[in-house]
């Protein structure tokens, strides 16, 4: 066991896979010499050389496109999108090629690649640096979209993602990159993608969240407990494929569900999860599924960002409202 934050844990996972699989390559903007703007890839170029860990030009379309080519050719590229909001120029490569290569080639070619993206707000950043775009990627057939909430999960999930033969959007909650430390097992271990984690058990309300929101929900749960409300928290971990079974089981027990997500509300992840709750546990529901989410607008600049962010009080408000319904 070693105490790590999420940056250390991701670095550790990359180190392990670079070390054991010569087909793994890691690159992106500032990834090589600089070690990434968040220092996630720090020391890797020194250790594995410029052929395996290197800087890409400032061109996201080329970044993704070259990875598609490498993956088809048999490598396992792990590329870093410096910020989630920079992905748009590479979007066409993701949708038009990466996500459908297997289908297009009738199974002849695969694109085993990981696109790492720091996502989400709460760090007082500028425009294009705070988006939470899980819904956009979750909507695209052929992609897997995952997001860890702890150093342990980040390491185990990233190793699983690199070993997967699918194209995986690995969303990293940059807000808690360094805000959480945890004892993480040394050496290689994996966490299966597609499986949610029941973080804490409860009887009155189910809350489904992921990434940086887990910590906010946990604060709300402490306050709710003072009002005698027992909350079950599910860390989704995998946005697609989504763990219907774990959600359904929990909602059947509690009869109520709240989703807490950072992205804009309309057509967001909250709607999808609410619908799953309705389909799987309609007869158990005691209140309409509720959503705590971002708003249908661009994440504000630092001065106004807190209005947009989901804090424990907004979550607590929904918990109390839905229990009294």
């Amino acid at each position: 066991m070693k105490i790590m934050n999420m940056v250390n844990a991701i670095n550790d996972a990359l180190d392990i896979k670079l070390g054991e699989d010569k087909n793994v390559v890691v690159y992106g903007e500032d990834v090589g010499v600089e070690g990434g703007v968040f220092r996630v890839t720090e020391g890797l170029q020194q250790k594995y050389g410029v052929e395996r860990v290197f800087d890409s030009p400032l061109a996201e379309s080329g970044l993704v496109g070259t990875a598609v080519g490498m993956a088809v050719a048999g490598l396992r590229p792990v590329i870093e999108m410096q910020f989630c909001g920079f992905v748009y120029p590479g979007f066409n490569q993701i949708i038009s090629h990466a996500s459908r290569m297997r289908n297009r080639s009738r199974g002849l070619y695969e694109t085993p690649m990981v696109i790492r993206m720091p996502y989400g707000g709460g760090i007082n950043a500028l425009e294009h640096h705070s988006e939470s775009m899980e819904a956009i990627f979750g909507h695209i057939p052929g992609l897997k979209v995952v997001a860890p909430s702890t150093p342990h999960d980040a390491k185990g999930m990233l190793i699983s993602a690199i070993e997967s033969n699918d194209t995986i959007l690995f969303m990293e909650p940059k807000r808690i990159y360094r805000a959480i430390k945890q004892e993480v097992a040394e050496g290689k271990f994996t966490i299966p993608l597609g499986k949610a984690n029941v973080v804490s058990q409860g009887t009155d309300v189910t809350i489904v969240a992921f990434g940086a929101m887990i910590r906010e929900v946990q604060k709300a749960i402490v306050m709710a407990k003072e009002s005698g409300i027992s909350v079950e928290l599910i860390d989704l971990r995998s946005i697609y494929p989504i763990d219907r079974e774990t959600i359904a089981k929990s909602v059947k027990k509690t009869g109520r569900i709240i989703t807490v997500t950072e992205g804009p509300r309309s057509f967001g992840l909250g709607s999808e999860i609410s619908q799953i709750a309705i389909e799987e546990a309609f007869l158990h529901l005691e209140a309409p599924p509720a959503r705590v989410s971002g708003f249908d607008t661009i994440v504000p600049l630092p001065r106004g960002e807190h209005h947009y962010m989901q804090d424990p009080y907004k979550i607590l408000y929904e918990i109390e409202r839905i229990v009294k319904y």
Partner: protein
Amino acid sequence: MRYIFKFPDIGEGLEEGTIVEWHVEKGQKVQMGDPLCTMETDKVVTAIPSPKNGIIAARFGKAGETVHVGSALVEIDIEGVEGAAAVDEANKVEPLEEGAGVVGTLEVAGNNAVLVASKEGVRVEENISSGGKKALSTPVARAIAHDMGVDINLIKGSGPAGRVTKEDVIRFAQDGSRQIKPAAVPGEATSPVLHTNLVDSEPLSQMRKTIAKNMIQSKHNAAHMTVFEEVEISELDRIRKKYKESLAAEGVKLTYLAFIVKATAMSLKKFRALNSEMDFEKSVMLYKKYYNIGIAIDTEKGLVVPVIRNADKLSVKEIAIEINKISDKARDGKLTMEDMKDGTFTITSYGSIGGLFAVPVINYPQAAILGIGRVSKRPVVKDDVLAVGLVLPLSLSVDHRIADGGDTARFVNSIMGYLADPVSLIME
């Protein structure tokens, strides 16, 4: 021996502090508790005391610099080791973690804020009871249940897989099966006991249980009807006063009640319905040919009703003696079942304590009960002249199943006649 003193977490969840001012120099001798420096955190400005005696070998950080919890603050040379060696050692301390990033600011966890290791794979299911079974139901049925004030979880569903349907809710609400069991077994209805500091919860005494049971039985079975009357008893008062002294000499206390018992017993003989009992089950009336008058007596433990047997055959004086006897026994708690059984009619003289009129509850299965109110001096019309009268209020409750209004009124009139003209009590 060298000791590296790290900036301690001096507040809950503290992550960093700013050095305001150093109080020690390199090479300075310090005692345990001496202030090393003043630190400003987001919560307090406070002096950081030295944890050891020794010589300051090195200081880390200048005034105005921010120091993270857990990073080295000073090195103390406890046994006089060379300062340079200490500085080398201190330099091996891990570099400060920074919220690296070209854009934005990242929150950095303190070294003491460590999340527990994941227990995934060895998770032990917490055993949380779900607090009763929850109903399967559609939202519309839940809404109807809510509107009707019904707890849907109590309803047995008739739909697929036990689903509670709209019809189930409506049926449940209408058939009243959700209500508390009707008082078919009187006295056994229970109410929730409150366990709070505001309420003293005490178990019911056997006596209180009996009283409660009898009262419910009476109110449940008898059709209560009450008439109110007033009778002027100046003459009775005169006679009572006349004999009071001499009887007191014999140890007998002569009260109005003795006369009232006598008048009642004599009136009962004329109106047998008032001295009867209805056996509804067997469809028979039981007219009693004995006149045992129960006297309701208030005691500390509760109401008791000892009986004066064959009151019709006793003189007023004998009745007075009997009343004295049972009162004493009641007060001393020495009444036996023998003293209290076989009453045929009851008199309750609440007026001796207070109350002009009351509506007495029949001592079921008796047919009636006479209530005696408070005697008071009142203006009355005597021979067309306004005079001061002594007025006794009476209230008679009858079981209207047994006694009709006519008999009831006539019975009251009879009692009133005896009391207004007490000599008549010895004429018949």
